[in-house]
């Protein structure tokens, strides 16, 4: 077997690059594709790639939840609505957007990337003092659960109420007759 020489090319790094490129590319497709269904699919791909990135960060639970909640539920809901509304004749993609706004939006996007990127590039990111072993252990999920039910109990409960309210709100909004 030929030994290809790439300096310090490890499995996580390769995986990172794969997922990162997929995520960014598909993210780009989300905003340029004309067909909303295609956009949605591109977003699904982005989400899955981000889930992959989560995996490389050792956040298995979050990765799984990302797929289940985002890809499996939220995006399906998007597709469902698109299909329900039969959005075929809608203005697609960037056609119909004037040149001025196009340039302005692009410029703003670039400006944001440079600004935030320069922060990322210049700032130092000191590692935390906590025990890395505990973080990477298979007990990760268990510990998230414990955190949720101890330190974050109140937000947890509040969020559940929020979900209930959203549920009722969407039913009321989407109902035809009252």
């Amino acid at each position, binding site marked *: 077997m030929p030994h290809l020489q790439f300096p310090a090319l490890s499995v996580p*790094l390769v995986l990172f690059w794969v997922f990162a490129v997929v995520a960014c590319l598909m993210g780009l497709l989300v905003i340029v594709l004309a067909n909303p269904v295609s956009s949605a699919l591109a*977003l699904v791909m982005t989400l899955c790639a981000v889930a992959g990135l989560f995996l490389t960060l050792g956040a298995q639970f979050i990765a799984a939840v990302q797929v289940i909640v985002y890809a499996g539920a*939220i995006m399906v809901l998007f597709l469902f*609505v698109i299909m329900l509304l039969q959005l075929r004749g809608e203005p697609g993609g960037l056609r119909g957007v004037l040149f001025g706004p196009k340039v302005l*939006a692009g410029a703003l996007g670039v400006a944001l990337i440079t600004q*935030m990127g320069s922060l990322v590039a210049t700032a130092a990111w000191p590692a935390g003092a906590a025990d890395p072993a505990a*973080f990477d252990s298979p007990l990760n999920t268990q510990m*998230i659960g414990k955190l949720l039910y101890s330190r974050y109990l109140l937000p947890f409960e509040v969020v559940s109420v929020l979900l209930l309210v959203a549920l009722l709100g969407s039913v*009321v909004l989407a109902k035809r007759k009252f």
Partner: protein
Amino acid sequence: MVPISNYLWVSVILFSLGVTGVILRRNAIVIFMCIELMMNAANLAFVAFARQTHTLDGQVMVFFVMTVAAAEVAVGLAIIISMFRHHESVNIDQVDLLRG
């Protein structure tokens, strides 16, 4: 270990893409998707920082972001549906209800 700045770069790019999409696109559903994109960028940054600091709080935060996103999508899509019923369109340029 992949350095954290790599992840943050991805996060920055995804976020900016989302912002650009929100400005550019006219289809309300796509705009919504772009918002999801931005949220994901934030989530990615959260998890990256969580690993950097070796704490799980970042991951817990992502959990909450996802829940809020789910709630937001439920309501948002319901709004889009009722908007479609009124205007036969989801083009935000045809809707100016925010005008006093």
